[in-house]
């Protein structure tokens, strides 16, 4: 049974908001998911799901201080403090899967949250105001890449009357920028300790850094395996493992998930178990994907044999962290993001991914309202054209199903595949 169907059957009643706050919900869910272990084609995905249920339960049952964060904030800090991280953008994806996206978006609209804003945040706004999300004890947000997140999260903090801490990330990567970010990270950390009355445990903090490094190592191993030909994991399957990248670095559970994925992938490569019967093309996917039911990946991978061999979001762009200098090395991690600074950095990173994964084509999913990812694409397009790599900018919305036009999407994908195959 699909996890969302399962959740839906349990939560899909008038009391579902309250159901989120009941320990029974998570107990039943966990049992149901655990019992279906062997039905999961990837055990790593099964593990990831169980971990996510546990973390969600901890947040909803308020087993500790819940700290909302955006997906670019270095969450190692939150794990290191023993807080419970909650990423509204990621939760918006779950809400979409649960089919409450429409209701949440309507609520946002009635609260005057403009439909021009990113729908991840509109949806999160609606879920929050409708009582679907656990209230935060504090909110942290990084300013890099996304303009909507800081604005949206500051609004959340004001609404719940909790402290809001902004990590202001410059675009330069020089020593002054590094020190500026490192000092902020330190100050945010100790402000959280004070405002949430947390215990500062140096060892736990270091442990989070060590976990982050271990997860990074394992993710690198996964990525190396994905460079092999032919692919043994479909892009659609691999996409589920983006979650730890956005909200899980610093947690022991992410080490476990990536470790298991690397092991399973290795086994499949040894056994020559292909992702699709005949790999006709290899694609690189940029930005995120739609999370409501759609046929995009099915059409590409299963119908046309064009496998999405890598997604930009899984790119390891940073160097290992130094447990002795946690704030400084986290600052370096933040500033290393290839989407930060001049567009030439992102282009260079994408071209290196094209080479490493031997991608013959590139698809960018232009999520409505996401200006950071989309606006500069012309330069990327030019760079890819120079190398004669077909490129498709596929417009749509990751979470607002009403924006999905299956016919038009199919036509665009088929046109693109023609240039490729």
């Amino acid at each position, binding site marked *: 049974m699909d996890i969302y169907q399962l959740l839906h059957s349990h939560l899909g009643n008038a009391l579902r908001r309250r159901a989120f706050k009941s320990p029974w919900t998570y107990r039943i869910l966990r049992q149901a998911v655990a019992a279906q272990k062997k039905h999961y084609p990837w055990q790593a995905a099964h593990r990831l799901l169980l971990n996510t249920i546990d973390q969600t339960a901890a947040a909803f049952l308020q087993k500790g201080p819940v700290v909302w964060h955006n997906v670019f904030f270095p969450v190692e800090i939150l794990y290191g403090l023993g807080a419970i991280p909650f990423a509204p953008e990621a939760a918006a994806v779950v809400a979409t899967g649960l089919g409450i996206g429409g209701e949440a978006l309507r609520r946002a609209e009635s609260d005057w949250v*403009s439909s021009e804003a990113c729908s991840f945040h509109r949806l999160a706004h609606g879920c929050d105001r409708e009582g679907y999300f656990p209230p935060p004890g504090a909110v942290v947000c990084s300013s890099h890449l*996304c*303009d909507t997140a800081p*604005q949206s999260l500051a609004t959340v903090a004001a609404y719940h009357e909790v402290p809001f801490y902004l990590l202001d990330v*410059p675009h330069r990567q020089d020593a002054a920028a590094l020190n500026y970010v490192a000092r902020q990270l330190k100050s945010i950390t100790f402000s959280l300790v004070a405002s949430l009355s947390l215990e500062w445990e140096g060892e736990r903090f270091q442990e989070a850094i060590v976990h982050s490094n271990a997860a990074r190592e394992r993710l690198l191993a996964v990525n190396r395996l994905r460079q092999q030909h032919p692919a043994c994991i479909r892009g659609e399957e691999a996409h589920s493992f983006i979650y730890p990248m956005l909200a899980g670095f610093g947690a022991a559970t992410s080490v476990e998930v990536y470790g298991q994925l690397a092991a399973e992938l290795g086994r499949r490569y040894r056994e020559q178990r292909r992702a699709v019967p005949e790999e006709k093309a290899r694609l690189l996917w940029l930005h995120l994907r739609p999370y409501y039911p759609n046929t995009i990946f099915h059409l590409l991978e299963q119908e046309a044999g064009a496998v999405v061999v890598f997604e930009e979001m899984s790119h390891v762009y940073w160097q290992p962290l130094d447990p002795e200098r946690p704030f400084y090395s986290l600052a370096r991690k933040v500033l290393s993001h290839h989407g930060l600074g001049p567009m*030439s950095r992102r282009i260079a990173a994408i071209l290196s991914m094209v080479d490493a994964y031997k991608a013959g084509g590139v698809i960018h999913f232009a999520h409505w309202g996401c200006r950071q990812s989309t606006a500069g694409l*012309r330069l990327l397009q030019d760079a890819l054209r120079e190398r004669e790599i077909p490129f498709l900018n596929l417009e749509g919305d990751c979470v607002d199903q009403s924006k999905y036009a299956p016919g038009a999407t199919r036509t665009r994908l088929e046109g693109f595949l023609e240039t490729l195959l």
Partner: protein
Amino acid sequence: MSHLMGWLCHYTPVEILTALGYTPYRLLGREGNNPRATTYLLGNLCPYVQSCLEAAIRQELPPLDGVVIARSCNAMIHLANVWPHYGAGGKTIVLDVPRRLNEDAIFYFSQNLRQLAVEAALAGQQRLDEKRLWAAITWWEEQRTTWRRLLTRRAAGEEPPAGKEIIEGLSRWQTSPNLREADKLEEVITRPAHLLRGKAPSQPRLLLVGSILPWELITMVEECGGLSVFEDSCNGRRLLLNPTTTAVGEGDPYLYLARLYLESPPCPRMVSDREKRRRYWAAIVDQFPIQGIIYHVMKFCDAALYDFLDLKVFCEKRELPLLRLDGDFSGGNRGQWQTRLEAFLEMLEVR
């Protein structure tokens, strides 16, 4: 002919450009759609930024030695990316501006400003002399003081000139290629003062808010019978900053400038400074008895989209009528705006 250096965001300390021997020239966009710019800046992006690029592509700008682009929001960041390829030529200098206000941010910004002085220097120019910089700081402060005085008198209802005149004056002040010629400048600043009216009219007193405001909105408000008393925008009152408590001529001029700009009334982008922005609105509303507020939401400006929500809460608490108008900076919304404006003003008159 003086060297013109373009700039866009009001967090760009023009003093440095003046001290280096440039005449700062603000890019204020153009009227009409931006079909050519949208092929380079894809998707749903701030029309002000697109409009500036369109003006460059169409060669509608005077010859510029370069342009300083503050990476203040996503749209500006993308403009900085494409400008060297498709813009007006000359240098493209990017400036990081913090989104928060504390001593750390001020210090960091001052370091960036020092770097700006190096990057913007004219060929063969030595390190910028601090005395020259202080002189430019003093000169700009005098200009702003005059403007502030004029705008405060107008907001207080002491024989106000029309908003349209003020705004036209401010536009000329930011874009005059002869800015450094004192007599011409005097003319620009004092011109609105010549237009002082006899008596403060009894129209509804309005606060106009937005990121950057399109001028036709102010004209239209006045044509419809409203009084634009205060324009909280970066081409309106925010442009004039606030004087700092630090003495001019003492200490590090870059630190002075960093403080001057970051401590001034915040733009919606200063997301962690919202409380200060609320206090700013409260002070305006109290000081210049405001009867209604109009928020111009620039299409695709994330900062404005959320700033509006904050203002809405503010207005609800104070029971102040609020009208939201969406615009794309092209001057193309007149019909729709007019109907809504008239209804809003009628409602205010009945109250």
